[in-house]
């Protein structure tokens, strides 16, 4: 499946789960997904400068009735940890965290970041699920949204290269 097709399935899943505001920071592997988010008129897209501010933006939007997701790389998840602890967990705010899993098995870069991603999520008590097949995206996103709303805690979906589809080869810079 191409990354554009996978992106349509994932964004379709977000909308099916009621998500209507998405805060993002780019990673090359997220490029098709973020384009799809940006072009969808049913989703308010908030491009960030740093992931931690996205935790605040999603908190404020949740408090006035929006359903939010934050899409970032796992390095950005580490950037967000203080806000996740002292805002999301302290105030019991639900939020769907869609985290690109850099350093996943078979990935050549960021193996240290990859090695620490699931242990840190676990230490924070954030339940997480690894997404591999884009065909499962709709179902998993729906379930994760139910869990985050019901538990009033963030829930993480780890986006692997497989679930994001095959991207077009990079042009040399």
């Amino acid at each position: 499946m191409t990354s554009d097709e996978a992106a349509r399935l994932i964004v379709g899943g977000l909308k099916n789960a009621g998500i209507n505001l998405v805060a993002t920071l780019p990673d090359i592997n997220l490029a098709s997904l973020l384009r799809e988010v940006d072009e969808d008129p049913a989703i308010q897209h908030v491009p960030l400068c740093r992931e931690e501010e996205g935790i605040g933006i999603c908190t404020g939007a949740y408090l006035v009735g929006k359903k939010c997701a934050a899409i970032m790389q796992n390095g950005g998840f580490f950037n967000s940890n203080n806000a996740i602890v002292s805002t999301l967990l302290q105030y019991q705010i639900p939020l769907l965290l869609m985290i690109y899993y850099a350093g996943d098995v078979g990935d050549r870069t960021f193996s240290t970041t990859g090695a620490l991603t699931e242990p840190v999520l676990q230490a924070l008590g954030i339940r997480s699920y690894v997404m591999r097949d884009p065909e499962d995206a709709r179902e998993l996103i729906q379930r994760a949204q139910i869990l985050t709303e019901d538990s009033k805690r963030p829930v993480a979906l780890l986006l692997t290269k497989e679930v994001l589809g095959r991207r077009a080869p990079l042009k040399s810079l």
Partner: protein
Amino acid sequence: MALKRFDCLKAVAAACGDALAVSSAGAVTLEWNALRPSDGNFRVRTLGLCSSIALGMALGLPRRKVIALDGDGSLLMNLCSLPTIARMNPKNLIHLVFDNEVYEASGSKKTATGVGTDLVGLARAAGVKNAQWADSLEAFERAIRAAIAGGELCFIGVKTGTERVEVPPYPIDEVENKYRFLRYVEKTEGIEILKVNLPASYN
């Protein structure tokens, strides 16, 4: 000349109507709550996130005024919120910064604004067109009244002193603050935010 933050907050309370208010970690929260006790107040615990939480509210409720009661230490910790606010350009957001040039709640060490960093200059450079210093109480009152009456994103900085006013402690914890705020928004906006779903066996 440095103004009293409490006097500035009085001017905000007098002008703000039913605006939602987000206050930064620190004494500003206690002073604001003494002057305008309301379930429409949200206290921030993460230093820096005040302006970001206010931005999220402003984007989610574009017809409701949202006021961020920010401080210099807080804004300096989350400077990237300025370009993001400028980029999203919410017409209903009023970003106030009480700049006392110290980390007041953390031992009063100097912040970068105490040695020359200009927060209004940073806001303008980030793309917030309507950013200004208020250099007297009258100028601040005028600016806040204009911001409430107007329809554009505003950033107002004011230099304040470090004296504190005796006010009661914050009466509720974070989770109660969340629920009260949510219920207040539901009631005043006529919307449903917190729907408690029945277990499947009840369906």
